[in-house]
């Protein structure tokens, strides 16, 4: 390819809104309306709910269902504390020494629906410890995984959770790993892999990185700031 001579040619390198041109100091009409349309789509995606039966069919393993203590989507948005706690009376089987696997809707269910089964398929055979039954959690924040894993007696927890929708991607999945999970763990005690989606990190790369982090966490006995992602990069 030849080097771009025109400003708009920069678009071939990134999905970011580069090379828009300008009218005075403002964006041209078409670019402005493209943005408005993308914002409208993202706003609608915020309220997308998880289709649990479809998700279960995709996972092809025994699946347990739980909900957080939040009553509905609006309460979930405004009360993050409730989204971090299991609903009263939730019972889960014990899985001591296992890795708990939680699939959570988060702020946008689309990415979970599309990518969580693929990541789990690739990740489960490479786990350094046995996998606990998969738990599908609705109205869930990341820290709900601590509650779930503590109830199961798991050694670690992997939470696959929908990331909030942006303008250019409404199907992004996040993955959080917490060693020795229990209620009250902070975000500095987790490792995160984000932007799992087409155009971001592939399911295969995400699963490989998660497996690397879990093995490193097992060796270190911890996740979070103490565990540096020092996985070798693939040759360019």
């Amino acid at each position, binding site marked *: 390819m030849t080097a*771009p001579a025109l400003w708009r040619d920069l678009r071939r*390198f990134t*999905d970011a809104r580069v090379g828009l041109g*300008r009218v005075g100091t403002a*964006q041209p009409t078409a670019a402005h309306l493209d943005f408005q349309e993308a914002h409208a789509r993202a706003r609608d995606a915020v309220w997308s709910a998880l289709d649990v039966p479809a998700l279960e069919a995709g996972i092809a393993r025994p699946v347990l269902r739980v909900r957080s203590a939040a009553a509905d989507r609006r309460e979930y948005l*405004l009360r993050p504390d409730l989204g971090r706690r299991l609903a009263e009376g939730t019972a889960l089987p014990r899985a001591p020494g296992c890795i708990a696997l939680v699939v959570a809707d988060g702020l946008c269910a689309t990415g979970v629906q599309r990518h969580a089964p693929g990541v789990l398929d690739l990740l489960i055979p490479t786990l350094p410890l046995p996998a606990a039954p998969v738990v599908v959690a609705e109205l869930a924040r990341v820290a709900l995984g601590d509650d779930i894993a503590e109830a199961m007696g798991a050694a670690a927890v992997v939470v696959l959770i929908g*990331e909030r929708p*942006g303008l250019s*991607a409404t199907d992004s999945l996040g993955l959080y790993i917490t060693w020795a999970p229990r209620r009250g763990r902070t975000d500095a005690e987790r490792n995160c892999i984000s*932007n799992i989606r087409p155009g971001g990190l592939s399911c295969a790369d995400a699963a490989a990185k998660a497996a690397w982090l879990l093995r490193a966490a097992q060796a270190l006995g911890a996740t979070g700031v103490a565990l540096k992602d020092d996985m070798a990069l693939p040759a360019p």
Partner: protein
Amino acid sequence: MAPGRGIIAAMPFAQTVAGTRYVFDDLKTLLARATPFRSGDALAGLAAGSAAERVAAQRALADLPLARFLTEAVIPYEADDVTRLIIDRHDAGAFAPVRSLTVGGLRDWLLAAEPAAVTALAPGLTPEMAAAVSKIMRVADLMQVAAKCRVVTRFRNTIGLPGTLSIRLQPNHPTDDARGIAAGVLDGLLLGAGDAVIGVNPATDNVDAVMGVLRMLDTVRDRFAIPTQTCVLSHVTTTMLAMQRGAPVDLVFQSIGGTQATNASFGVTLALLKEARDQALALRRGTLGDNVMYFETGQGSALSAGAHHGVDQQTLEARAYAVAREYAPLLVNSVVGFIGPEYLFDSKQILRAGMEDHFCGKLLGLPMGVDVCYTNHAEADQDDMDALLACLAVAGVTYVMGVPGADDVMLAYQSTSFHDGLTARALLGKRAAPEFEAWLDRMGIGGDDERIPARLSPALIGLA
């Protein structure tokens, strides 16, 4: 015993409004009830129960002597290293001009004072004093007083001079792809952005990946001889590791909060921040100055981490600025709308918080910028950001963000675009940092040509 160590028992405050008597048990309760309504304080159970209770608290707060803040800490001295930093660093000499005033008296003093007097006050004010006075000020008051504060910092250029508005160029990419980031950098440069910093939020905290982005940004800066600084906003410990391995680190970034436990939730301590700063200073990469730190903050982080000690989120945000100023940063910004609607529900709350954060930061002597932004589950849109950006620019905000088309494709939120930065500069007659402005002129940037100027050939930075 030194003051501030809890030797004076908390005394209740009382105020009657419209025939009802309201009692506030202690200083932190008074501050919380006096705060304009926001969802995070309601979530924490700290917000006033009614508009009348709020104004009663504001009246009681206005009558409070400033000296009280030196004897009653909102979080005990023994329990929190941020409180210790605040009390131990308080400059009684700088405080002298206002030491006999009440909070209400301070508001009047600030509005009437000359810029030099307001600027000189910074080391004499505690964050709680700044937060308290902001709670009895309107947005116009916050603008007027912030505009008087002079804060100038330097690394490879000069940031914060009167009449300037700098832009952080934020060319994030969902996989940290070098060419994707480079295209974002070039786009921003062509639209006059990047004098605050060219700063990438990495998609991964992988050390090699972070080092790769650091090298690429340094190459771009070097090839085009841009008088600015670059930064990868990874965790401070990752940046320290990158420095040890020889990566070209200009600025050390870290998110910080207003309590010891909040900082612990970010995986940092005050000692760690000092160590990182010392490490960056030893690289001696700054040509005009040695402001090597870059901090981000935001209301709600303490509550999110369960580390708020019953203190309202705006007061805690101001306390984060006491942490920041300990390390002489080049740049500090609140990421005001990023945290989400559970802390700032809608555009009204985001606008108020953004103006408070800028005011408190400036009053405490920081080079304060604001990420004018919102997420897609907040009740806000780009019109609201235009209003906040305009208010901040009038208030003399040090810098704002420049994101391609205002859409961050990695962090999935909306901020201000390169165009927005140009518009704010044009509307208010603001200019870029002088060294950067001279560079823009040299490179032939700012014309109406669709063609990229030859001196900025994309091939020079690997775009071919």
